[in-house]
């Protein structure tokens, strides 16, 4: 599927926000799904790169994420030039991405109007809440990406349920620059609690530090439903917390992907085997059976 770059905005640190015109994709995709993006026609890099939707363009946010033009950015690898302006439409999708290597570096240079080759939507969406619940969104760094679209999707599809859920975002990073997109949540009236390891924004420490010890302060401070995305160790900690809290939880996993649609068998994650099976664990495919998994389906 072809899409066309609408904007490609340099955000804090090495993060970028890319808007792509892709009506078919915008229509058929759900929160938690992803695309495999081909960053160039060259054979190097060869493989597509997986990216979760940050937004499916359906939401309407009052206050927009403020793109900053980071020409004097602290990141060396990326020129950090913003291209275009953020104008979402029902026909567009958004990716929030961090420049970490060859592929994302090429993406950071993409001009407005540039055609991109997308395969998707792929994977299983996040299950939406089915009843009014206290919801915790727990994100680490770029793991924020699939959580916005989740809330926008809920707001869009079930505005009433969305209203009646009490949702809070807990957002951790190593430093202030890792915390992007906060305004997008605030504009949906979702309160945001921030932790950074160097203390440059919010509480100093890990995002899970914001969450421990909640049991003592009573039931009403505990979530019924948790959605999380971030570094593996963080999600493992969240899984432990959810067991304590007796909350259902879903994680969006990251993993090296050769294909994204179940053909290469490269993207497995260890999962508890059912009692009937005689094997110590089983492998699940992140691309097809995930990337969103109930927390208890993963051997953390």
């Amino acid at each position, binding site marked *: 599927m072809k899409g066309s770059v609408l904007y490609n905005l340099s955000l804090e640190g090495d993060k970028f926000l890319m808007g792509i015109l892709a009506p078919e994709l915008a229509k058929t995709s759900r929160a938690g799904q992803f695309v495999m993006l081909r960053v160039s026609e060259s054979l190097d890099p*060869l493989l597509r790169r997986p990216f979760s939707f940050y937004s499916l363009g359906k939401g309407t946010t009052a206050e927009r994420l403020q793109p900053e033009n980071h020409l004097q950015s602290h990141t060396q690898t990326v020129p950090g030039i913003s291209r275009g302006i953020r104008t979402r439409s029902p026909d567009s999708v958004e990716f929030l991405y961090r420049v970490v290597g060859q592929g994302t570096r090429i993406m950071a240079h993409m001009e407005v109007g540039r055609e991109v080759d997308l*395969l998707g939507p792929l994977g299983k969406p996040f299950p939406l809440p089915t009843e009014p619940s206290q919801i915790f969104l727990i994100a680490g760094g770029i793991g924020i990406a699939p959580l916005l679209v989740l809330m926008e999707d809920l707001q869009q599809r079930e505005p009433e349920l969305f209203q009646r859920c009490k949702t809070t975002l807990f957002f951790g990073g190593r430093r202030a620059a890792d915390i992007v997109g906060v305004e997008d949540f605030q504009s949906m009236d979702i309160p945001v609690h921030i932790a950074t390891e160097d203390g440059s924004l919010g509480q100093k420490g890990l995002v899970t530090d914001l969450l421990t010890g909640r049991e003592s302060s009573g039931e009403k401070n505990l979530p019924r439903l948790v959605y999380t995305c971030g570094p593996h160790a963080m999600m493992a900690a969240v899984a432990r917390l959810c067991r304590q809290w007796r909350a259902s939880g879903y994680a969006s996993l990251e993993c090296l992907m*050769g*294909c994204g649609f179940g*053909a290469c*068998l*490269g993207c497995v994650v260890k999962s508890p085997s059912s009692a009937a099976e005689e094997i110590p664990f089983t*492998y699940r495919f992140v691309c*097809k059976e995930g990337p969103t998994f109930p927390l208890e389906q993963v051997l953390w």
Partner: protein
Amino acid sequence: MVENPHLSVKLGSLILKNPVMTASGTFGYGLEFEPYLDLGKLGAIVVKGLSLKPRLGNPTPRIAETPAGMLNSIGLQNVGIEAFLSEKLPLLSKFGTPVIANIFGETIEEYCAVARRSEESGAVAAVEANISCPNVSKGLDFAQNPQATLKITQALRKATSLPLIIKLSPNVTDIRVIARAAADGGADALSVMNTVLGMAVDIRTRKPRLATVTGGLSGPAIRPIALRALWQVRQAVNLPLIGIGGIMSAEDALEFLIVGASAIQVGTANFVDPQSSVKIVDGLRTYCQENNIADVNSVVGTLKSDPI
């Protein structure tokens, strides 16, 4: 201009409607590609390597990207021949495209058992024996030893009357010797080639990028090696050959046909573009049309090389 070039090719008694097959391990059990293409348009579907019992495969990371290529050490994870025959094959058979079982085992007996079960199913068109997977064997492979190649080919030849394809490894000093052994053992066709043994290191963690340290290199990076291997095998044996390695386009496929492959397999390209295989079928047709070639077979083995 030829409007409807003849694209059908023969691999011994196996007839394909065109020379384009999918390479084992890169096309799942075929069904994964249903959303992207008409499976009925392919010459043949070679499924993921099948063993007697299901296999979990290797720990992660299982893949790593390299310049114009990728490494894999999936470890031959598969559902096992029985689950394949009962759950996947019935769905796959309805497309009218020959399904080829890629088989492997840890012993010759296992290989033969999987071949026998494939034949018994009545819906497998041929058996391709992977005697050269670098990710599971600790020591050397069958495909790295002519005697071992001869022995396993003979055993498989006895075990099944299905067309028998032996898939060769490039990780040898002289692939011609192995090819001759497979021919002597009674193979109907040879697949040239499997992945090249490779490795990559993450300099940040100082760990190998694959959990198994080494793995199989595939993709366009190895195409020149595959073409050379095919050319060597072409001169060594008189069997129909299947060219495999880094084929991304119809142009790439033509290189293999010209060197002497009767058919080709599309591997890693399926990951980059799931429609690659049918695009290559279409590309071959267009090539024949534009170049007034009535029969694609007339391209096979037409390499012009001056003796030097």
